[in-house]
């Protein structure tokens, strides 16, 4: 799994006593270069992105018209916000967006989490064969369980979120279909973001904005691409100066390529989801775990705030699987073992199998 360690430097940020209270706030943690992270709701995605979504960034998700995977990302994002009591703004092209709140997943109980302990970073009880071991005492190599489970919850997609998470919460739901243009929506976003401004004082909480399917054909403003672009630009600048994260999904196949490219450039973090064909024998031969996969997720860009150093990921495409049909996990794509007898070459479709040509090689 691609776990990014932040670039170490000889300088380390001095967290003053006042700002130490930030780490007490659940749902936020310090990131590199003076940024703060909030969780995306999917533990694997947080690991891939190096900690989560950076506060003040704009996350764009490119949809695939043939699969609803972007809804999984939005659902986990919103649920995480509700679990951490962060104010939430949700907009969608449906007539009744409040109905979507009923489909949000519930966090998994901790006893289920323990069975999922796959810490790839630390090997528990690494067995070392050492000749002089008998002269030294037993080393205690115990795995520390840190309380990181608070920051990002594993969500059970089959269980709906309990009612007590909704009560007393600020959740704004906006239907994009009603308005003929984006000005009213823009005003609502601005007023939402003014609740979580960024200033030198301590931050109290962070806000989340989730916009689903911007540019869907049902909305009247979908062909006014200039208006949508200026809306996104001003949203991005407002978000930069506030403690919030906005996740916006849009269907690139329904908008013009120029608009799609502009949106991709505007994003701080860019992710795309893709559907996979069902019962495709070629893919089943090529990838392990094809049966469990529901889709592919690609990370194109990771937010680069306060730094010029880009984050280069080991792998950019991950398979989306539902573990026990409940929680969403992302895994690296693994090539299936090449069957020596068939020796069919996959060289055309994957870049790292140049050597798996046909023919037995005798030494």
């Amino acid at each position, binding site marked *: 799994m691609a776990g990014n360690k932040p670039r170490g430097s000889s300088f380390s940020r001095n967290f003053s006593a006042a700002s130490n209270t930030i780490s007490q706030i659940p749902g936020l943690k310090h990131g590199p270069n003076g940024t703060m992270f909030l969780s995306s709701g999917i533990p694997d995605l947080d690991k891939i992105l190096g900690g989560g979504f950076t506060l003040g960034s704009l996350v764009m998700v490119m949809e695939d*018209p*043939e*699969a*609803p*995977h972007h809804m999984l990302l939005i659902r986990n994002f919103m649920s995480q916000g509700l679990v951490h009591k962060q104010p939430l703004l949700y907009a969608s*092209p*449906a*007539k*009744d967006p409040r*109905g979507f709140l009923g*489909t949000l997943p519930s966090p998994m109980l901790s006893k289920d989490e323990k069975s999922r302990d796959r810490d*790839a970073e630390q090997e528990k009880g690494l*067995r070392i*064969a*050492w*000749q002089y*071991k*008998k002269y030294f005492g*037993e080393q205690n190599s115990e795995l520390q369980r840190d309380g990181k489970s608070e920051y990002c919850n594993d969500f059970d997609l089959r269980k709906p979120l309990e009612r007590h998470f909704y009560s007393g919460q600020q959740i704004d739901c906006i239907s994009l279909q009603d308005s003929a243009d984006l000005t009213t929506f823009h005003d609502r976003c601005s007023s939402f973001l003014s609740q979580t401004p960024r200033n030198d004082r301590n931050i109290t909480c962070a806000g989340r904005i989730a916009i689903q399917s911007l540019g*869907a*054909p*049902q*909305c009247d403003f*979908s*062909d006014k691409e200039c208006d949508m672009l200026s809306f996104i630009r001003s949203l991005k600048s407002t978000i930069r100066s506030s403690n919030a994260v906005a996740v916006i999904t849009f*269907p690139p*196949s*329904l908008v*013009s390529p120029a608009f799609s490219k502009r949106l991709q450039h505007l994003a701080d973090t860019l992710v795309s989801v*893709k*559907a*996979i*064909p*069902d*019962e*495709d024998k*070629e*893919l089943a031969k*090529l*990838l*392990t775990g094809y049966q469990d996969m*529901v*889709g*592919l997720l*690609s990370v194109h860009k990771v937010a680069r705030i306060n730094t010029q150093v880009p984050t280069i990921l080991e*792998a*950019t*495409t991950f398979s*989306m699987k*539902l573990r026990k049909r409940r929680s969403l996990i992302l895994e*690296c*794509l*693994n*090539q299936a073992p090449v069957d020596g007898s068939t020796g069919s070459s996959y060289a*055309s*479709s*994957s*870049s*790292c*199998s140049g050597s798996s040509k046909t023919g037995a090689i005798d030494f």
Partner: protein
Amino acid sequence: MAERICRALRDGALEGEHAPALTIKDSIQSPFGSLVFNHVLSQLSSFIVAQKSQSQGIVLVAFSRGPLYYEEFFKSKGNDVASSNKWIRVLDCCTDPLGWRSKLMESGRIANLTLGTSTTASLYKNVKDLDKLLLAITELGKELVGDGKGRFVVAIDSVSEMLRHTSISSVAGLLSNLRSHDQVSCLFWLLHSDIHETKAIAALEYLSSMQASAEPITRPVNGQRGNSEKLPFLEQNLRGGKIHVRFKRRNGRVRLMSEEFCIEQSGIKFTPISSEAEMIAQSLVPKVQFNLQLSEKERNDRAKVVLPFEHQGNGKTIQIYDGRKSLNEDKPEMQYTSAEKVQTVKDSGRGEIIYFRDSDDEMPDSDEDPDDDLDI
């Protein structure tokens, strides 16, 4: 596979989910979309009459063919016209879509021509206003199935006609509102793909969960311009074609299927693809890596492997491993290099390290072999 589509439509929507929606596409090369539409319509109507489907009625929004055509159609299929009142309503947007006829009749310009109206049809005169159309459809549906839990199917004769009068965003709004309506079980519509912009077609495909496109069996190569060479293609394409279906499944995977169809007197008949299998080559696979993770079984096996020196300090005596034989054999036959006691440890649950020397003729030179003082 056409059966599959009809079955998916018959099963309808789950609670809290959008209704399944089918787009039937055709083009001038294979203009049989309306026949496919009729086929789906007759299948669904037979399911409804036999009470095997989730829905109890059909609301047919007729844009390109009038209600009389459908009466004839259902009669030819053997459905009783009199009882069809119970399960079908036709919203007639074909006779007078913009209300011109009634305006002319009011002003007395034309005589009041009473067209043979059927009891199941209601005239709709304002196709430019899609909100009212939505209301009319839902009202008709409620008339059919009542207000409670009943569900109905919506069939739109031709979305292409709708797009003539209104913009794609309002049509998309109508369709998505129908999909999310509680009482709609499923919907399907016909679209002629070559008369619209790609954007409109993409929007409609985005809204549908199944797409069936009728395509010609063979396409004439562009180089052939002479009529004499095109005729056999035309003939073949007029007798039948292929239908490609894309299903968007609930788990997010897309199933692609194809069938052939041929046009007969009684309608359309579907047969599975006979000729050479077409491989839909999709090389979408990005860079893949080799699997560096361990499965459960592999992890267990790894835990069982006996490493040298591992058990030192556990209280057992030291046993030097001599690399010639595997662990489970009798120890007295081994050569001892030291005076330490050796115990045979028979542990069938542990893994072994099997070491084969290059040649058995050599005298065992334990001084040179570094593995000899490994202690298992």
